[in-house]
């Protein structure tokens, strides 16, 4: 029961920002250029959720609590959802749904290409996150889902190329990403999982 509440809580926690931003945008509380703010917020949420997803394994290893791994698929799917809305926001607010510009954008702006590549890699991971796919893919499932490390690198590079006047925020995300990778390099003592 406790773990079910935990999973519902995480669901609501991840959904909350989206509802709040849509409400703010509707109320014009995001300032005079809400499309831009919404676009940035959605991308930021996707990255934070990706970092949270990647922090669950180290957290589980450090704490031994089963709850961490129980929300991994959920957070991964949330990251994909925010990334998809971020992409949709780009198509709507930047291109105005005029996809004829998309070719030029992909050719001339590397950060767009990186962002699209990261989303295209996330897509098969989201589609194969269910139990049925896990069974079907068997021993191939894990190597496929290791693409998440590449996705994190692409997402961070994508953000770095958009930085204009201050690099502080990017450095924070990159440092957390690096820490999460370093934690995977060292072997943890196996912790008995409490049931």
């Amino acid at each position, binding site marked *: 029961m406790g773990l079910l509440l935990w999973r519902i809580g995480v669901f609501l926690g991840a959904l909350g920002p989206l509802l709040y931003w849509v409400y703010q945008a509707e109320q014009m509380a995001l300032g005079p250029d809400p*499309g831009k703010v919404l676009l940035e917020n959605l991308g930021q949420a996707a990255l934070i959720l990706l970092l949270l997803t990647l922090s669950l394994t180290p957290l589980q290893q450090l704490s031994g609590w089963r709850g961490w791994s129980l929300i991994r698929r959920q957070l991964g799917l949330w990251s994909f959802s925010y990334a998809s809305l971020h992409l949709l926001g780009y198509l709507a607010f930047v291109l105005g749904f005029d996809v004829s510009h998309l070719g030029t954008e992909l050719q*001339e702006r590397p950060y767009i290409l990186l962002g699209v590549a990261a989303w295209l890699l996330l897509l098969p991971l989201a589609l194969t996150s269910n139990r049925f796919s896990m069974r079907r893919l068997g021993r191939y499932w894990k190597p496929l889902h290791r693409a998440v490390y590449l996705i994190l690198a692409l997402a961070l590079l994508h953000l770095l190329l958009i930085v204009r006047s201050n690099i502080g925020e990017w450095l924070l995300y990159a440092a957390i990403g690096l820490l999460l990778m370093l934690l995977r390099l060292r072997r943890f003592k196996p912790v008995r999982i409490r049931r």
Partner: protein
Amino acid sequence: MLIQITPRSACRASEITAEATYLSRRRFLANTGLLLAGAALPGLAPGAAPRYEGVTPAAAPAWLAGKLPDTRWKATELPGETITPFRDASQYNNFYEFGPSKTDPAANAHQLPTEPWAVVIDGEVGKPGRYALEDLFSPFTLQERIYRMRCVEAWSMVIPWLGFPLAELLRRVEPNSKARYVRFETLKDPEHMPGMRSHFALLDWPYVEGLRLDEAMNPLTLLAVGMYGRVLPNQNGAPLRLVVPWKYGFKSIKSIVRISLLAEQPTTTWQGMAPQEYGFYANVNPNVDHPRWTQAQERRLPSGVFSPNIRKTLMFNGYAEEVASLYAGMDLRRHY
């Protein structure tokens, strides 16, 4: 000698709304109240009565209050275009000295002391010196100019500025024959400008901008001290800023403390940091994209999520008639 050239974009005297129509009874009563208050409080002089909806009133400093009665209101207008609400123009700013986000300047700029203020004028001029703002400013009549403001980030606003042509100031300080460029510098005051204290800021301070002398002398180029009929809010560049309406917004440098006339082209802040993205000229040009986004269109703010206000960007931001000749024969793809 005053040569007055009326641009085609200006309105005719016959188009001016009669003041009686303009002032609703309610507003008239409010103004009367303010007039009475003005007698008691010099800061709230008659001109301080809000001329636009939703303007946060501010006490005009003495050097400005005395000028407001003689101001030429609506010296230039933009028929058919809606003036951006004061709230948006004053709450959505790029002023990196106060922080990297659009809301940082409005949150932080109130800390900045803008009085007393002095401007150093030096370089290739006959009358160099350190001028107190009120002295610098005293010979000129204020004008209100309603200009489009196009940010390099592909958003735009329409703002009623209060100021005087930069050319009038430059003539008084007598540039010599060697002067070919004008360099401007923003205040560098980390104590009151939290963005400057960030260790992760990529910009070099102080912020520097520049114009070719003929651009600086163009009648459109304005030195602004106010907007929306009131003194400039700090986040909009108080007490003295440049407004160059046919160039991207970052050319319109804020909170100026130094104006230098130079023989050589100065290195400017954004151009120095990312020359492949920001040129010295930075003329609004829908045909030359920023490497990271298109400049062919712009979001005229406010632009809602469910009611986007996207429009095509105009060459020289719609001021081609007045300024295109400055760039005759130049390759604007190379000199972006």
